């Protein structure tokens, strides 16, 4: 294993079953700190499932069973003394459809702070600072500084998706998981999110699931190709797209299935 400074997420022999159906088999992967890693593969190959393993949200369903090891930021997340609360603060997720809460922009951004601190410990001034910082970081501050009170669900989709990212930031996450974050957005919106990802790169480890090959090539440093619950190939994006080692990868990126 490389030093903890190298890999943010490591899985070893990870299997996941939905009831009797095995959705992930024997996944061993290492995801680099501070880079953008994309996951590609045909529909139903388990990208979302794998992504959701990294902060243990799959466990919400009681018919899900996981075996193997998942090490996030140097810590096996199945250790009994790992706190799910702390884990999820560090590993945030962005969903396919933007899911801002039906409250104001401001309240969306400070939502995490509010649930993780005592009411008395939160000063209005601190919250204001946190909002400005988070919105600036995702590039929304200029547009929304005068509209912090509007309901977040009335924003444009692109702004909503950025807001969903901003909502994670006050908790100081280190990993951000994105499940097809652009699939509900138009070209402009997609470019906006991609530019934001470049902004965030370095400070955060980003894992993004995408069906858009061009996006994977443009936006990611490393790529993972999955097929039927198995990891087929994991390489720097250039290599994976230009000279894939596995014939199945080649077939997929040439568009022969999926």
């Amino acid at each position, binding site marked *: 294993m490389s030093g903890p400074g190298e890999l943010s997420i490591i899985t070893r022999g990870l299997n996941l079953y939905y009831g009797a159906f095995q959705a992930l088999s024997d996944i061993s992967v290492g995801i680099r700190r501070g880079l953008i890693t994309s996951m590609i593969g045909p529909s139903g190959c388990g990208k979302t499932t794998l992504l959701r393993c990294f902060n243990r949200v799959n466990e919400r369903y009681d018919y899900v069973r996981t075996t193997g090891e998942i090490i996030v930021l140097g810590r096996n997340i199945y250790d009994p003394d790992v*706190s799910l609360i702390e884990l999820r603060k560090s590993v945030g997720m962005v969903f396919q459809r933007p899911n801002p809460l039906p409250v104001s922009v401001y309240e969306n951004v400070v939502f995490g702070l509010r649930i993780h601190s005592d009411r008395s410990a939160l000063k209005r001034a601190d919250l204001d600072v946190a909002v400005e910082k988070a919105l600036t970081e995702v590039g929304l501050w200029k547009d929304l500084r005068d509209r912090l009170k509007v309901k977040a669900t009335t924003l444009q989709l692109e702004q909503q998706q950025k807001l969903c990212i901003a909502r994670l930031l006050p908790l100081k996450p280190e990993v951000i998981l994105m499940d097809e974050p652009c699939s509900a957005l138009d070209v402009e919106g997609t470019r906006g999110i991609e530019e934001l990802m470049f902004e965030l790169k370095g400070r955060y480890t980003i894992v993004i699931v995408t069906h858009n090959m061009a996006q994977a090539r443009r936006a990611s440093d490393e790529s993972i190709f999955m097929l039927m619950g198995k990891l087929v190939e994991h390489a720097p994006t250039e290599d994976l797209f230009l000279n894939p080692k596995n014939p199945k990868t080649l077939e997929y990126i040439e568009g022969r299935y999926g």
Partner: protein
Amino acid sequence: MASTGPTTQRFARTAQAARSERAQKVAKWVFGAMALAMVAPLIGIVTYLLYRAWPSLGWEFLVDLPRKGMREGGIWPAFVGTLYLVTISLAVAAPIGVLAAIYLNEYARDNWFNRLINLAVINLAGVPSIVHALFGLGAFVYAAQFGFSILSASLTLAIMTLPVIIASTREALASVPRAFREACWNVGATRWQTIRAVVLPNSISGILTGIILQVSRAAGETAPIMFTGAVFYKAVQRGDLFPYRLGDQCMALSMHLYTVSTQVPNVKESIPYATAIVLLGSVLLVNATAIAARVFMRRRKRW
């Protein structure tokens, strides 16, 4: 990451997280306790009733007639009477209620007229049963001249259950995702075709549940039938499945329970309890059937 200290400390419970988790655990226990608290009375009631009813319980009790001025014997006429009342009232209320709900949910636009109908439905559901009884007496017994009869009593029960059936059916219809309807409209299906092909098949289990829950209500009410068609005693053939005509008066379980508990002296002690068990048992049986049917239909529907 030297700055965060030894990596084994990652994701360790902070004081804040521990507090959150403690609060979460307390909440879970409180909610769980309330859920249990709800089950306890049910078990308590059933056990107590069974215990007190034991000497009378049996097939004989069900099919025999009340004897010696209802002080001994069984409850057959009351049992069949309740079957009549519940069946007829739901046979009237269910179709009307379901069709009205389909209109309100699928066709009606949001205008003042339909809002008025909505308001009427909601308020009708809140009318006390004794008021329904009085209405049934005036409308069916006297105005429509059905007299004191099974027909009047069933119609009164139907009026009483109708608004609730409408409300529960609407809820079931509303739970069918809008996208399914749009898919239909966009291949040129009419609203009626959409309802038949998509809306009803996917909401039928909810609709049926709503209707069947009204069985227990219709079976349990005393006031509406007492005003309109139920009597203390009516002689019928032992075990006869069709002893009544629509124009007859009939006995009913709820009424019989009232009678033997309060109106007749020196009743064999276990008889009121056994009557209650039969009433409760029939209702639970119907509900259990409904749940089974629902589970079966749920399994076929998936989205």
